[in-house]
């Protein structure tokens, strides 16, 4: 259950990150330059796909009845975390999910 | 927000608050009862669905009281409630009259 839960959390945060970076003002905030229109579209598409993946992961953790409820909670909290990190540590806001991957991997291997 | 925009006149504000809270409640009560009677469902289902929707109606009624163009219009919910109350309680009325 923890594997799916952590997976859903990481995917939720990544989806919020992608959607956020698809907005010009926030892309500039992190990278210092304006994104091209193509890049923005790719980021937004990625964001929506990660969103759906996150929902699927939540359903693996809780089943399809409780899954959507947990998913919305994870999305909200991820979004808030992102909004809070961006002005203080924009690069950390973008890169910490990579550090989250080993934790997820450990959970997966321990099959919890 | 400019100073004139509703900050200084006490009576219209009181009026809207009452229209929203009390008038809105009366309207919601009547509409819920009417809905309970009108829904083509079993008694239990009709009660649950009408009650489920009632708080949305009440919220909108309160918003209406403040969005309405004048404090008088805010009270429109009360006369609107009358026919709804009739629909909601016609069996009880018939009993009384019979």
């Amino acid at each position, binding site marked *: 259950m923890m594997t799916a839960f952590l997976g859903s959390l990481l995917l939720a945060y990544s989806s919020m990150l992608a959607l956020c970076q698809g907005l010009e003002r926030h892309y500039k905030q992190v990278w210092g330059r304006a994104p091209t229109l193509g890049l923005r579209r790719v980021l937004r598409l990625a964001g929506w796909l990660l969103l759906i993946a996150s929902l699927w992961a939540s359903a693996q953790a809780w089943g399809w009845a409780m899954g959507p409820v947990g998913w919305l909670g994870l999305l909200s909290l991820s979004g808030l975390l992102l909004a809070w990190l961006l002005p203080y540590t924009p690069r950390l806001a973008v890169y910490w999910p990579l550090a989250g991957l080993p934790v997820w991997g450990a959970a997966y291997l321990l099959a919890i | 927000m400019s100073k004139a925009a509703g900050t200084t006149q006490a009576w219209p504000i009181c009026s809207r608050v009452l229209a929203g809270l009390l008038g809105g409640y009366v309207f919601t009560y009547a509409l819920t009862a009417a809905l*309970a009677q009108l829904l083509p469902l079993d008694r239990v289902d009709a009660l649950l669905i009408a009650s489920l929707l009632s708080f949305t109606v009440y919220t909108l009624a309160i918003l209406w009281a403040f969005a309405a163009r004048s404090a008088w219009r805010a009270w429109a919910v009360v006369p609107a409630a009358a026919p709804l109350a009739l629909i909601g309680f016609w069996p009880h009325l018939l009993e009384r009259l019979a």
Partner: protein
Amino acid sequence: MKQTLTQSMAWLHTWGGLLFGWLLFAIFLTGSLAVFDQEIDHWMQPEIQQTSVSNAQAVEHAVAYLQRQHADASAWNISLPSERMPALRVTAGDRRSGISTYLDPLTGEPLVVRDTAGGTFFFRFHYSLSMPRNPGIWIVGLAAMAMLVALISGIIIHKKFFKEFFTFRPNKGQRSWLDAHNASAVLLLPFHLMITYTGLLIFALIYMPAALDSLYKGDFAAFYREHIDVMEEPHQAPTHPAPLTALAPLLAQAEARMGPLSGVVIEHPGRSDAHIEMRRVLGNRIALTKGHNMVFDGVTGELLAGPPELRPSVLAQRVMFGLHFAQFGGYPMRWLYFVCGLLSSAMIATGLVLFTVKRRRKYASESPLGQQLYRLVESLNVATIAGLVVACIGLLWLNRLLPVELAQRAGWEVRGFFALWLLSVLHAWLRPRLQAWREQLSLAAVLCLGLPLLSVFSDGQAWGDSMRLWLEVTVVALGLLLAWSVWRLHQPQVQHSERRVRHAQAQVN
């Protein structure tokens, strides 16, 4: 007077939000704590240990004890140990008002456990403000309506809903408070709307009995019988003593059908009309299954009723209740609700603070009455936001500091809670604003950070089991957060140029 929709909704949001904000903060904070009510109960009863014992064994001990001490009781209630509540508790007589005893699940012997208000106090305060039942419920309902109005009016006036979805600009004074308020409100909007609406639905038939009055002439009992298959009371034949049937097979049957059990209720034990109700743990599904249990004949062991099948509309209603009660989904879901609840409380707090920050510069130009009113608002902000936190953590301190043998101990804990809160109101009124905030938040931080030490000194041992450890770790984490906020308050306040301030005020949202 002519106003645009935005102007009228902004007025409504501001003043409705202010008037009900303090109450709503208290409701949301205690509601968040109530998510872990049983865990807090457990922490506040250090005499109870976590053990693992099978239901059958626990019931055997319980029945043996009840047979010895309360053989003639009209009913026996057995609260079984569960993951969240490791206590084995028996009650003779009515479940709420009968004689209760805690038993050691391993030996079956009675335990002396301190009388405490427990985490259940936060739950009761949350829906009734600790007032005698109905007035409190009505006030909470009114506050919930105010919350709905504030949410919808807030959405209407927030023009840059999507543009500023992730926007947070710290260290900019008023702008930052507005950003924090907007971000926490928008990003948690599904939670806010869901928790408020489902909260109202729980007491819907008290708040809005229109459909009940219209369809059932207000007869709730008739409605209850129609929507849940209630077992009819058997006709009153003269009863005679009869041995109680073996419970272990019934336990197994009930567990197979309903999942983990929370308790057993035996009506008329030892008589021929005995009934056994197996109560299930809430949370196997979202729908709140409170009261939907299996009932067996106490002498023959035959299944008499339940668990009831729910028709779609009743199921929908129960799902709504369940979404609010948050008993489902295990600990991960429970933590999500807890964090979201705390953040919602913070959202309300940012709104209250924003109100004062926006107007602070103009206090000097207000009338004397105006100035006193603003002073009142500032004090109430401190007393409600910081003071309530002090009172809540204070309740846990009182639990360990009050003598165990004190009569009516639970009542004294509650009195202490309100005394602390009242003192914080007085303190906030008497002290200058910034000092009041710093001092109360510091006290809250110290009480939170000191909780593990309190535990050690009052019990002679550290936390005791994993559940209490988790609680203390969480409290310490919250204490660190409070300490950080005190540190922030000691930093130089942000200064603005007049032009920037006017520009910020022009943007209502």
